[in-house]
């Protein structure tokens, strides 16, 4: 009982502190959702954005739900099972959010937050969206994982639809066209959609996959070009991660690193 009350207080405080943090630092937010493959896609997005000279921060571990998401935004660890541990975290969160030096231009703040989001019950998404408003959304798959509190998979799809709905007018939805339910979300979207997958309808399509002794070889074809790739990882989810990397590279502009320094030279 006391534990539950304390948990609610921690959750409430973290939510508001995360909101204050986002309001003050104004990072671009890319949300990765879906029931599988988020981790490797998150890594791929981070890598692609860093190649474009952006500073990026991502979720720590699997901090991706009601308490974990605000912790990820604030860049804090978990208080684990310790009462005092959580008090310390709340104190650190206050210090970060109330710091006079915190602003969007502060060099220690990231230009991009890449956040995994996980829902395991109806209304979870509403709660997470009350903290975060994404600028771009990447949807992977909708499967039976975490489905026990939902009537069916279509109900989960409706939750993910909310993610696309809250995108700003210039927002971007990156959707896996190999998953029928995710693909269907494109039809009802009024935002810009880029599709990926093995499907022939996908904008960024993968073909000719070949498993070799030390990884996988495949081709990615997209509207403007195609490329042959080899990776040292095994499994379809790593191919999806490479597709996402290609999408980010193709659709996000480079940040001019040290712009004024270059002019002065």
């Amino acid at each position, binding site marked *: 009982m006391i534990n539950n009350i304390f948990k609610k207080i921690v959750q409430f405080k973290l939510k508001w502190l995360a909101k204050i943090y986002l309001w003050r630092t104004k990072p671009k937010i890319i949300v990765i959702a879906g029931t599988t493959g988020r*981790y490797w896609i998150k890594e791929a997005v981070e890598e692609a954005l860093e190649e474009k000279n952006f500073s990026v921060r991502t979720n720590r571990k699997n901090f991706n739900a009601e308490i974990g998401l605000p912790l990820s935004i604030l860049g804090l660890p978990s208080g684990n099972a310790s009462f005092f541990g959580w008090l310390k975290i709340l104190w650190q969160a206050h210090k970060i959010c109330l710091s006079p030096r915190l602003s969007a231009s502060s060099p220690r703040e990231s230009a991009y937050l890449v956040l995994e989001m996980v829902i395991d019950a109806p209304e979870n998404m509403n709660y997470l969206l009350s903290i975060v408003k994404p600028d771009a959304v990447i949807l992977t798959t909708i499967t039976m994982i975490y489905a026990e509190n939902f009537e069916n998979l279509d109900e989960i799809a409706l939750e993910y639809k909310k993610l696309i709905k809250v995108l700003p007018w210039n927002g971007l939805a990156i959707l896996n066209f190999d998953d029928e339910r995710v693909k269907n979300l494109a039809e009802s979207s009024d935002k810009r959609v880029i599709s990926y997958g093995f499907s022939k309808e996908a904008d960024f399509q993968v073909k000719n996959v070949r498993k070799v002794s030390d990884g996988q070889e495949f081709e990615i074809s997209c509207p403007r070009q195609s490329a042959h790739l080899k990776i040292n990882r095994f499994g379809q989810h790593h191919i999806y991660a490479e597709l996402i990397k290609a999408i980010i590279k193709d659709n996000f502009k480079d940040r001019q690193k040290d712009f004024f320094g270059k002019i002065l030279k």
Partner: protein
Amino acid sequence: MFSRTQKINLSPIKQIEILASKIPDVVSLAQGVPSFDTPEVVKKAAIKALNRGVVAKYSLTYGLPELRETIEQKLAEEGMYYDFEKEIIVTAGSIEAITSVLIAIIEPKKNEVVLFSPSYTSYQEAIKVAGGKPIFVNLIENDGWRIDFKFLERKINSKTAAILFCNPNNPTGTVFSKEDLLKIADLAEKKKFFILSDEVYKDFIYADEREYGIASLSARNDNNQESLRGAERRSNLNQSAFFSLAQLPELRKIVIRVFSLSKAYAMTGWRIGFLHSDEENVKEILKVHDSLVTCAPVISQYAAIAALDFGDKEIEKFRQQYQERRDLICRHLDDLKDFFSYQKPNSSYFVFPKLLPKRDSWRFALDLLEKAHVAVVPGVAFGPSGESHIRMSFGRSEKDINEAFNRIKKYFNIRTSDVQNL
């Protein structure tokens, strides 16, 4: 009737534990059970899963996808790349994994499995359960329990299905060098057998030995072609402290790696572990795993996600404690140098002292149990070269270790004359 099981023995560790359980106030240094409780964060995750109502049904035979994804991430951190969908099976501890692999790979014409002596006692029985024949290759005690490659090569023939070893080794606490592991890989490639590597103690390598695998590399002779291939492999390696053959992609078709959360996360009772290898091997092993257990306990699978995600700090705490206990047990053994000689273990939580003078380890263990009420495992249980040794676990608390040694010291002081006659 029972023609196969009659050849199989109950593990001597369990036999000793059964005998010990009948003696009041016995102190056991026999079973390899950590004295710690499962970390709080792991227990909470299990309770949460229980309350969510998700643990009453079977999981997929491979295991929960979210756990396998976590395992894949963890393996990648250690330089091992395996597909969570097709190349990882969550098992009911490591012994189920090993038994499943052995049943899958042993065939009538390829039924011999090479074991190091000494090595974990249950391996020989698992091989017999799978219809195979254990073939022992002695480790060289005077050379830090290193592998005797001349002897090993003599024991390998067309009937060899696999070599099975524990690295770090139970009961000697030896970390096999990268150089030696690569030699095993060369042999396995040439002679076409599997390498089954059980790495349950890889998290308990003690500070002074953490770079053991890398440090010993310079000894390798790079003159022949096989060695060159080994050199290439080494250059591609992630410079992690602990070396596993499963880090080498070119060996993924012959290496099957097993890990258990039992020791690292103090979860022996949860019966949870995993194996990974190339898809071609895993799809065959899966059939056996399915027949044996359908799936690993689902509540333990949820607990394992939390352990892998949040348990690293706890592992480090355990490791430091075990290192202190190792030093404590070694100090006690130093006090008894007329009765034991030993090599300080680099890892795990076992020490494997030699009995002085040489004597029957079963008789000694039973006598110690009966007269001093201290349970240890007779060395012969770990293979023929384990005779005249005993295994002591420092997984137990300092209090237990001190009490056990007080009794052992008393036993020797009082009964020195009896001991000479054993």
